[in-house]
């Protein structure tokens, strides 16, 4: 952090000013002129929070994607299908058992198993041939999408929110003042806050696991040079399988999460895949902090876009991507 400030004083200043401005916008009482230009503060705040929680979902999906890419150079274009698969499994299990947590865990395990199968049966045999692996993932995504359509039909499903997560919660942010001077606090769905917390916990645990444990050390070494790593006697295939399982499992888990506060339907797989593509392109491929940064940017861009320029909301995301590519082709957080 201090290193960054020393290297790029101007950028750090700009970022600090932007952060301060954002904090002021969040905490200040908006004057009527401001409400005239930006719309109501309630709208602004909910766009902000929706963007952050959407970013949390994107982070859950994209971190698995970027982990798999970073270690195995495998652009897994079936990642969106794993997400949708997890979501549908979560729906079915939740319907059967009535427990959201069980659904979450079972979806994680089953999709992780699917990931293990993919790695062991397919990708292991075409190591180093990135294009062929990508083509296989495209074929898989088509097959899985059609199988899911076959089984679940074209209807929209939603995973039931458990009771302990349902309902609104009051946040310590004012959205305005009543005429008698009393502050109106913002209320927000608790489930979204919980998801944000969950994503942050997953991110921190992942960061700790990658940077503080032996297996994380092996994974990082594999990202840098997997040939040397396997030459030192590490069973690199086992690490590949583990990482693939974990990345796939995260996608499945994100499917249940996404199915809870959004919906599940055919076509959702491509949408999520595209979002995670943009997230990792913006953040930098193979980097977990990059995935977090990219997810936050994309989530905020989508939400603010749909509030302030509804026609071109999706375009905004891609404009950001093009801008990042033009200025910093390796992504915001990549080392190279």
């Amino acid at each position, binding site marked *: 952090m201090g290193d960054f400030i020393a290297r790029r004083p101007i950028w750090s200043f700009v970022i600090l000013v932007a952060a301060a401005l954002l904090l002021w916008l969040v905490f200040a009482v908006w004057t009527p002129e401001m409400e005239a230009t930006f719309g109501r503060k309630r709208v602004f705040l909910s766009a902000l929070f929706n963007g952050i929680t959407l970013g949390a979902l994107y982070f859950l999906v994209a971190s698995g994607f970027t982990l798999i890419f970073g270690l195995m150079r495998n652009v897994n274009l079936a990642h969106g299908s794993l997400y949708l698969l997890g979501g549908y499994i979560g729906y079915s299990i939740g319907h059967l058992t009535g427990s959201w947590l069980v659904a979450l865990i079972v979806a994680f395990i089953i999709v992780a198993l699917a990931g293990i199968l993919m790695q062991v049966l397919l990708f292991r045999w075409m190591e180093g041939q990135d294009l062929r692996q990508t083509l296989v993932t495209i074929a898989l995504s088509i*097959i899985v999408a059609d199988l899911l359509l076959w089984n679940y039909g074209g209807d929209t499903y939603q995973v039931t929110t458990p009771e302990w997560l349902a309902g609104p919660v009051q946040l310590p942010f004012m959205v305005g003042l009543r005429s008698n001077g009393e502050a109106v606090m913002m209320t927000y769905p608790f489930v979204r806050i919980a998801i944000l917390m969950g994503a942050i916990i997953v991110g921190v645990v992942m960061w700790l696991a990658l940077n503080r444990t032996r297996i994380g050390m092996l994974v990082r070494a594999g990202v840098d040079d997997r040939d040397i790593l396997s030459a030192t006697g590490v069973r690199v295939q086992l690490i590949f399988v583990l990482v693939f399982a974990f990345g796939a499992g995260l996608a499945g888990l994100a499917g249940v999460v996404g199915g809870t506060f959004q919906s599940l339907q055919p076509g959702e797989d491509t949408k999520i895949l595209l979002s995670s593509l943009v997230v990792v392109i913006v953040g930098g491929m193979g980097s977990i902090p990059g995935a977090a940064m990219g997810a936050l940017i994309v989530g905020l861009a989508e939400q603010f876009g749909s509030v302030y320029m509804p026609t071109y909301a999706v375009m905004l995301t891609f404009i950001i991507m093009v801008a990042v590519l033009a200025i910093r082709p390796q992504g915001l957080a990549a080392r190279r």
Partner: protein
Amino acid sequence: MAITDIRPIGQHAPPREGLGEVIARQGPAFWIVAALLLVMPLIATSFWLVQIIAYAMILGMIALSLMFLAGYGGIVSLVQMTVAAFAGYLVAIFGDSAIAQISLKWPWWAAVPVAVFIAMLFGTLSGALSVRTEGIYTIMITLAIASAFYYLCLQNYTIFNGFSGFNGITPPVFLGVDWGSNVPFYYLTLGCAALAYGAVIYVSRAPFGLALQGTRDNPRRMAALGFNVVAHRIAAYTFASVIAGFAGVLLVWYQRQVSPGTAGVGPVVDVLIIAVVGGMSRPIGPFIGALVYVLLRTFSLDLLEAVGLDGKRFQLLIGLGFLVIVLFSPDGLVGIWQRLRERYRRSRETQAAQMRIGGGTP
């Protein structure tokens, strides 16, 4: 970079030769197919002529532009279908369509070149954006550009007319011939496809094409030799975009309409599937892939119901077929054909050798 392994190593282009020599060198298969395509209107019904063969040739042209990039440049771009759809949109916008408040009603000889030109600029620009990163990243970035275009078409109503797109686009009447009727349209697509095929073969043997193949095999060495690798790759995008642009014009004339669905993620991936299934090592591959794709797409309902499955599982069939091809023959159908021929030739040679040994001297 592993992208190169889709093509057998050591295929050096022969030295340059004249058009006559190239034509004279073609084997009997080429002449049989050419003659068959020329007399096709006499033997085929109009359904086969337009719905199957002409459509396959149009899709084949789009896949050919991808094959040029991937086979000779090592660039797997998913933006080709988007370039084609963009050209189609531009024909509808500049030319005539049923959406009178947007279409400018230019004559076709003005609308088509301008449309292809702007589509070429778009293709070049997306190429310039994606060649900054390397290898497998390209596929992600071009996929993102393609879906950005899809969403733009879907949400913009002032230029692209949103969800419904444009309909009522008709091929022109020119030289007293209605190019929209079956037989002229067939010959129009045949002519364009043949031109594109010839152009790709010509460019692949021209100095530019050879340098491009050099950048595919070893970009670093080409850079050391003084070639501008990035410029060659961008120029490859430009050339491929012209082919895709013309194919897009034909596509919109064939379908008589263009909508965001033309450029959706499905068709974008389909073009890649067509090129891979056909084979990306030779320019004929995409056309074979397109023919197989169109045949499957048209007859999958009957085919699936004949074996007792649900007729709606067309995507499953395509996905499984694609998986099998990718797993067992990375060179696609052309690769299978070449391998069979090689085996046949080798067995003939060993036979001949055995006969020579057994026959003794006269």
